[in-house]
C-alpha cells in the first residue's frame, strides 16, 4: 500500500507528488533527499523567474523631464518601485506587469529635483539615472575644455623645462602626445554621440597631462607664476570675510528682533565692516601686501565676533526652548485628545496612554518652572525625556499606519504653534481629519488582546 506523504506546489509548476513505502527506511531518506533537492531547485528556478529586470531610459534627464522605467518578470505581478537619490527616498509606487510579464511606467522628475544620481529599485534589482541641467553632450564638451586647460598646464611645464635648460625625456613627450591623441579621440566620440567613451578618453588625457605636470615640476623646474593672481588670493580672503561679516550681522539682527541686547556686538561689527572696507580699498589701490596683512588680522577679529555671538547664545537658546516647551505642551495635549477619542476602540491602551500623557503634562510644568528660573539645561533635559516618552506612546498603538498617523498629528501640533490666521484653522482641521483617519483605521483593525498589551510599562 502506498501513502501520499508530501504535496508540494512549486512556483510556476505543476503539483509534485512523491510517494514511498512504509516499510522502506532507506526509501524514506532517499525521498527526503530528493524532495530537498527538488525544493531548492524549484525555489531557485522560481527566484530566477520572479527576478524582474529594470531598465531606465534616458540615462540623463533635466529636472522636470520624464524617464521611462521598464522591465520584465512574471505576468500579473505587482512590483514596488522605489526611487531614491543620495539625500533620501524620493518616491515609491506600485506597478503591475501585463500578461507578457512586461511593465513600463513613465516617471516625471520634479522640477526642483536636486542634481544627483537617482537609483531605481524594483524588488531587489536596481538601475539608475542622472538628473543634471546639462546634457551629456554639453557635459562632455565642458570636460573637454577642462582637459584642454590641463594640456596647457602640461605645455607650460615643458616650456619652463626648456627655458630652464632641463632635458625633457622622450617618455614624457610620449605621454604628452598620448594626451593629445586622447583629446582627438574624445572629439570623435562626442561627434558620434558616444559620450561615455568620450568621457573615458578625456579622463585618459587628463591622467597623461597630470603625469607631465607632476614629473616636470618635480624635477628642478620652477613654474612661472601669474603675478596677477596674488591679488585674486587676497580678494578671496576679503570675500570670505565679507560673507562671514554678513552672516554674523544677520544673526545679530535676529537676536535683536528677539529682544536680546546686542548693542556692543553691533558696534564691534561696525568696526569690523569698516576694516573690511579698508582692506578692500587697499587692494583696489594695488597695495596688495598691506591688504593681505590687514585681511589676516581681520580673520582673527571675525573669530572674536563669533565668540561674542556665542556669548549671547544662552539667551537665544532660552527663547527657543520656551517656544519648544509650548510646542511640546501642545503636542502632548493633542495626543491626549487623540487617545481620548480612540478610547472606545482601544480602552486599555488608551487608558494607559492617557495616564502617561498626564504625567508628561506634569513634567512639562516642571520644565516650564526650570526655564523661568533660568535653568535652561535642566529644562532641556526634562523636555528631552518628555519628547522621548511621547514618541514611545506612538508605539503603543501597533502598526505602521497608526504610528504614521500619530506622528503626523504630532508634527501638525508642532506646526500649529508657529501658525497664524487661516493657516491655524487649516492645520486644526488637518489634525481633526488625521484623528478621524486614526479612529477609522483602529475601528477596522480592532486589535487582539495580545496586541493591546504592547504598551510601554
Amino acid at each position, binding site marked *: 500500500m502506498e501513502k501520499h506523504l508530501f504535496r508540494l506546489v512549486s512556483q510556476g509548476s505543476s503539483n509534485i507528488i512523491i510517494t514511498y513505502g512504509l516499510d522502506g527506511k532507506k526509501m524514506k531518506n532517499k525521498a527526503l533527499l530528493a524532495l530537498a533537492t527538488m525544493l531548492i531547485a524549484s525555489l531557485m528556478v522560481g527566484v530566477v523567474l520572479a527576478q524582474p529586470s529594470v531598465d531606465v531610459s534616458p540615462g540623463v534627464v533635466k529636472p522636470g523631464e520624464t524617464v521611462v522605467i521598464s522591465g520584465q518578470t512574471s505576468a500579473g505581478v505587482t512590483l514596488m518601485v522605489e526611487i531614491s537619490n543620495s539625500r533620501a527616498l524620493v518616491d515609491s509606487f506600485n506597478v503591475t506587469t501585463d500578461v507578457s510579464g512586461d511593465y513600463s511606467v513613465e516617471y516625471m522628475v520634479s522640477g526642483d529635483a*536636486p542634481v544627483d544620481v537617482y537609483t531605481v529599485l524594483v524588488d531587489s534589482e536596481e538601475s539608475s539615472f542622472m538628473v543634471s541641467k546639462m546634457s551629456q553632450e554639453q557635459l562632455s564638451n565642458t570636460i573637454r575644455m577642462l582637459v584642454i586647460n590641463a594640456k596647457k598646464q602640461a605645455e*607650460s611645464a615643458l616650456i619652463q623645462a626648456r627655458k630652464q635648460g632641463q632635458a625633457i625625456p622622450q617618455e614624457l613627450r610620449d605621454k604628452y602626445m598620448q594626451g593629445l591623441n586622447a583629446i582627438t579621440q574624445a572629439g570623435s566620440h562626442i561627434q558620434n554621440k558616444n559620450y561615455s567613451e568620450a568621457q573615458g578618453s578625456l579622463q585618459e588625457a587628463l591622467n597623461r597631462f597630470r603625469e607631465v605636470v*607632476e614629473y616636470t615640476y618635480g624635477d628642478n623646474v620652477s613654474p612661472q607664476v601669474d603675478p596677477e593672481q596674488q591679488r585674486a588670493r587676497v580678494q578671496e580672503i576679503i570675500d570670505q570675510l565679507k560673507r562671514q561679516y554678513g552672516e554674523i550681522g544677520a544673526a545679530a539682527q535676529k537676536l535683536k528682533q528677539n529682544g536680546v541686547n546686542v548693542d556692543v556686538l553691533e558696534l564691534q561689527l561696525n568696526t569690523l565692516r569698516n576694516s573690511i572696507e579698508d582692506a578692500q580699498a587697499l587692494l583696489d589701490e594695488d597695495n596688495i601686501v598691506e591688504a593681505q596683512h590687514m585681511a589676516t588680522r581681520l580673520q582673527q577679529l571675525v573669530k572674536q565676533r563669533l565668540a561674542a555671538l556665542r556669548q549671547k547664545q544662552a539667551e537665544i537658546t532660552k527663547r527657543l526652548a520656551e517656544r519648544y516647551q509650548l510646542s511640546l505642551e501642545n503636542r502632548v495635549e493633542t495626543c491626549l485628545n487623540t487617545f481620548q477619542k480612540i478610547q472606545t476602540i482601544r480602552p486599555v491602551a488608551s487608558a494607559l496612554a492617557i495616564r502617561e500623557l498626564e504625567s508628561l503634562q506634569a513634567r512639562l510644568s516642571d520644565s516650564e518652572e526650570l526655564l523661568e528660573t533660568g535653568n535652561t539645561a535642566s529644562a532641556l533635559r526634562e523636555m528631552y525625556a518628555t519628547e522621548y516618552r511621547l514618541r514611545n506612546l506612538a508605539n503603543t498603538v501597533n502598526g505602521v499606519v497608526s504610528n504614521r498617523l500619530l506622528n503626523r498629528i504630532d508634527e501638525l501640533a508642532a506646526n500649529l504653534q508657529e501658525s497664524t490666521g487661516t493657516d491655524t484653522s487649516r492645520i486644526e482641521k488637518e489634525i481633526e481629519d488625521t484623528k478621524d483617519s486614526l479612529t477609522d483605521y483602529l475601528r477596522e483593525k480592532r486589535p487582539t488582546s495580545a496586541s493591546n498589551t504592547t504598551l*510601554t510599562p
Partner: protein
Amino acid sequence: MRNKLTLFLILLIASQITPTLAETSPQELSITVQGDGVTRLDYLFQAEITSLQTNITLLGESYEDLFIVNEDGLPLEYVEALDWLTVYSLGSSLVNVTYLSAELTGKIGVIWSLNLVLPISAEIILPVGSTIINLNTIPLEIDSVDERTVLVMPAGSIEIEYTVDILDSEALAHDAINEADEAIQEAESSGANVTAAKSLISEAITLFHQSNYLEAEEIATQVLDLVDDIVEKMALAQAKIAAAEDAIEIAEGSGRTIGLDTAESLIQDAQSEFQSGDYEQALIYAEDALEAALNSEKSGNNTLMIVGGIVLGVAIGAFFMFRRRSAPERVPVTVEIDLERLFKEHPELRMDDREVLKYLAENDGEAFAFDIRDRFDIPRTSAWRMIQRLQRYEVVDERKIGGQSLVSIKEKYRRHL
C-alpha cells in the same frame, strides 16, 4: 506560560529601544576652496520639527569659525561629540552649518589635491586661477562663476587635483609673441631690416591661433633671438662701414690712392648689402674695404700732391699751434646730475632704468652704449630698447661718435660746477 514569558521578554527589549534620535543627512552641501587651501563648507540639513536636538556629521575633524543657524537665521547651540555634532535644533525645520577647514586639501610640489567622501552630491567651487589636472569621477555638472570652476560631484569618494596661479602655455606663448613683436617694431624703427623676423612671427601667430601654443612660444622665442642678432650685426656693420669710410678719407687725404679704388668699391658693396638688410655680408665687405684702405699706397709721380700735403700739414699744424697758444688753459669740467629731480619728474622709470641713470650720473652724465651693456651685463637689444625708452621719456640724448652710441643725460638735469 512559555508564550507569556517570550512576550514579556520582547516587551522588555522593546521598551529599552530608544526612539530614533533625529540624525539627519544633509540636503545641500557646497564646498568653496580658496587658493591657500582653506575650504569653506556650507551645509543645509532638514531637521525634524518634533525633535529637540539633531545629530549631524560633518566633513573633516576640526571646524574653524563654526556657525550654525536655523531657518529664521537664529544661531543654534551645539555640542561637539567624537564623530558628530549635536545641534539643539529645538523644533527648527532647517539647520544651516558653515565652517572653515584647512585639512581637506593637500599640496605636493605644485599640485593641490582635494580628497573627500561626499555624503550627497555636492557643489565644489575651485579657486580663481586654478586648473584641474585630475578627476577620479565624472562630474554631474560643470560651470564657471566669477572665474571659478564650479563642479557638481556625485556622492562618494572624490579626488580632485589642480594647480593654482601657474601661467599656462597660452599665456606664455601670448607674452612671448608680444615681446617678439615689440622687439621687431623697435628694431624696424631704428632702420633694421627685420623681414625674416616678421615672417617667423607670422608663423608663430598662426600656430597660436591653431592652439599650438608649445610651438608658437618656441618660435616667438626664436624671433627674439633673431631680432637681437640682427640688431647686433647691423650695429657692427654700421660701425665697420663708418671705420672703413674714415680710413678711405684719411688715405685720400694722405695721398695713398693706390688700391683705394678697391676700398671704395668694397665700401659701396657694403653699403648696398647694408641697405638690402644683409648685415653679415655688409660687415664682410666693410672689413675688406677697411683693409684695402689701410693697405693703400702712395703713387710715385704725385710730387705736387706731396708738396700740397706738406703745405697743408704745416698750415694745420700752425693753426693748432696758434689755437693752443691763444686759447685759455682748459679747466676740467665737473658735472653734477640732479637725479632727485629727474626721478621725481619721471615716476614711470623702471628700477633698471634708474640704475643706468645713476651709472651715467657717476660718469659725468654720459657713457657709451657698450659701457652700459658691459656694466649691467645686458644684451645688445635690451640695452638698445632701454636707451630708446629713456629717449622717449626725454631724459637722455644719444649721438654717434666714431660709430658708437654715446648716451648722455639731458642738459636740463645737469648742474655744471
